């Protein structure tokens, strides 16, 4: 039986959802125009007034919000409420520039938890589950966000945070963890560490679900993780600017449900900014409909994905975005060809001799871009005949070539020699000086 957190809202007819969104959008534009001088100026510069937004489609008239806007107004210049109304701050890691600050009112935290409570219910997680949260707690939104959502959903939280894998495994066994929330990289790391300690996640723990996210991962990686750990692995999506982790797939694993009463999702052409119809790949743009402290209008997240408005088999009517293919920022341009690390992961995980870890090294030699993919020799793939190993390298190189249309050098390295990550893993080293 399919369980819902709030069946009335989650199964609301699409037309009614759209009416609800239209109403909320109209309120939102008045709210930000009035409370955020930064947004008011943006509206004015674009020649648009809150009154111009009469129907849902009018959203096209509104200017986009960029991550750079949050940096330019650092720390709290875009907030719509005075600081004393905030109950929390989160701060992004700032790996790609100045960090961004997000503030939350009590209501913002409640809406965030509600979004996750619906998501967790949709994958059958709730009362009776022990949810071990291995996302980092602190300034990062992953740990605390999931924590509040899981408590709201009725699960018992085990707030291990990231790291200290030995302790994580011990507690997982002693407290019968059923659900683990972490990055896909950490799930692999945990599985390896468990094996080394003589523990089988499949047979020696009660683990049945992994909620994995905070970095892109492929469908092929999902299959690997599900098979090696004996769990169902679900993709989770969110970004700190929108609150943090917010949405997951449901048990059908057929796209991530974006709650339409809270968020309005658009897919646009990254070049022209024009909205794209369902099914076409483009850049994800989200408008927050109920946030108070830091509402965002047409926020360009930078992820590339595909949207569908078809109701899901689970009965939920809210739009879904398909597995995020990668970020616009992550795209590598090698000799004029666009390459996503996720494409490489898909190819590699389809070759059974190849292990789960890889590294992409991009360089420029004599004005020519080169790409090398390092993969680890595994016990299963090892042969002491050079020929066998060289044909494995050739097999991987030709599979990559047929998908990427690009010559790739494949280098086998020793098992365990590529970096393991407990958080977001780094899969690309770009040595080009451009």
């Amino acid at each position, binding site marked *: 039986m399919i369980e819902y957190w709030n069946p009335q809202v989650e199964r609301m007819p699409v037309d009614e959802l759209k009416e609800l969104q239209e109403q909320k959008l109209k309120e939102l534009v008045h709210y930000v125009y009035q409370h955020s001088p930064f947004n008011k100026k943006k509206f004015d510069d674009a020649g648009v007034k809150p009154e111009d937004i009469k129907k849902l489609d009018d959203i096209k008239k509104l200017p986009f919000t960029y991550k750079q806007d949050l940096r330019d107004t650092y720390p709290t210049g875009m907030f719509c409420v005075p600081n004393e109304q905030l109950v929390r701050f989160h701060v992004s890691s700032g790996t790609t520039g100045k960090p961004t600050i997000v503030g939350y009112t009590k209501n913002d935290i409640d809406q965030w938890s509600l979004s996750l409570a619906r998501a967790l219910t949709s994958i059958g997680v709730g009362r009776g589950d022990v949810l071990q949260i291995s996302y980092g707690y602190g300034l990062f939104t992953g740990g605390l966000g999931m924590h509040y959502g899981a408590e709201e959903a009725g699960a018992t939280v085990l707030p291990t945070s990231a790291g200290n894998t030995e302790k994580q495994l011990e507690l997982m066994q002693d407290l019968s963890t059923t659900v683990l929330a972490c990055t896909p990289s950490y799930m692999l790391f945990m599985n390896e560490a468990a094996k080394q300690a003589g523990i089988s996640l499949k047979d020696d723990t009660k683990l049945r679900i992994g909620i994995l996210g905070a970095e892109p991962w492929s469908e092929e990686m999902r299959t690997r993780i599900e098979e090696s750990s004996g769990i169902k692995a679900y993709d989770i999506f969110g970004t700190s600017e929108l609150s943090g982790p917010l949405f997951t797939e449901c048990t059908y694993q057929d796209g991530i449900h974006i709650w339409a009463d809270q968020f309005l999702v658009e897919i646009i052409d990254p070049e022209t900014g024009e909205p794209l119809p369902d099914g076409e790949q483009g850049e994800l743009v989200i408008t927050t409909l109920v946030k108070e402290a830091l509402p965002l209008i047409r926020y360009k997240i930078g992820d590339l994905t595909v949207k569908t408005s078809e109701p899901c088999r689970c009965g939920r009517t809210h739009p879904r975005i398909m597995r995020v293919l990668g970020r616009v920022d992550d795209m590598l341009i090698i000799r004029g060809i666009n390459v996503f690390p996720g494409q490489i992961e898909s190819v590699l995980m389809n070759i059974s001799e190849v292990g789960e870890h890889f590294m992409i090294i991009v360089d420029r030699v004599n004005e020519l871009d080169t790409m090398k993919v390092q993969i680890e*020799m595994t*016990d299963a793939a090892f042969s002491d005949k050079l020929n066998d190993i060289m044909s494995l390298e050739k097999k991987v190189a030709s599979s990559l070539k047929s998908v990427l249309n690009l010559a790739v050098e494949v280098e086998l390295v020793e098992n365990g020699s590529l970096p393991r990550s407990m958080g977001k893993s780094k899969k690309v080293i770009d040595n080009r000086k451009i």
Partner: protein
Amino acid sequence: MEDKIIKQISLFSENKSGKLASIASNLKNANVNIRAFTIAEAGDFGIVRMVVDKPDVAHSVLHDAGFTVSETSVLGIEMDDVPGSLSVIADVLGKYNINIDYAYAFVTKSDVALLIVRVDDIKSALKVLSSANINLIDMNNIEAI
């Protein structure tokens, strides 16, 4: 006849300085003595192959040290240390269409030399070599060298 099969240790190693030192020191600490040793190198990596007195111990210490390592079945063929010995062996294998994947030889303290070979059909090789009265050594001989 199966007891004439020798367990060779094969391991994958990146072609980097210090790798051999690490392999050697692991074997030294486990008191494993190397009888024959060769490296087949192919650019960024190499395959180290060796015949040792205690293959099981060698396998487990190298595996625990993180190496990708396997035990491979090979033959240890005794040769008189005189010209023409290799030709006799190669003739026999060739005549029966047994292909040599790789081979390496070493000279012992006595007057025989040893040829270590990996072949594509080890059972047939055992049969044809012994019918040709060519002597094969076993793990006990290896320990005793």
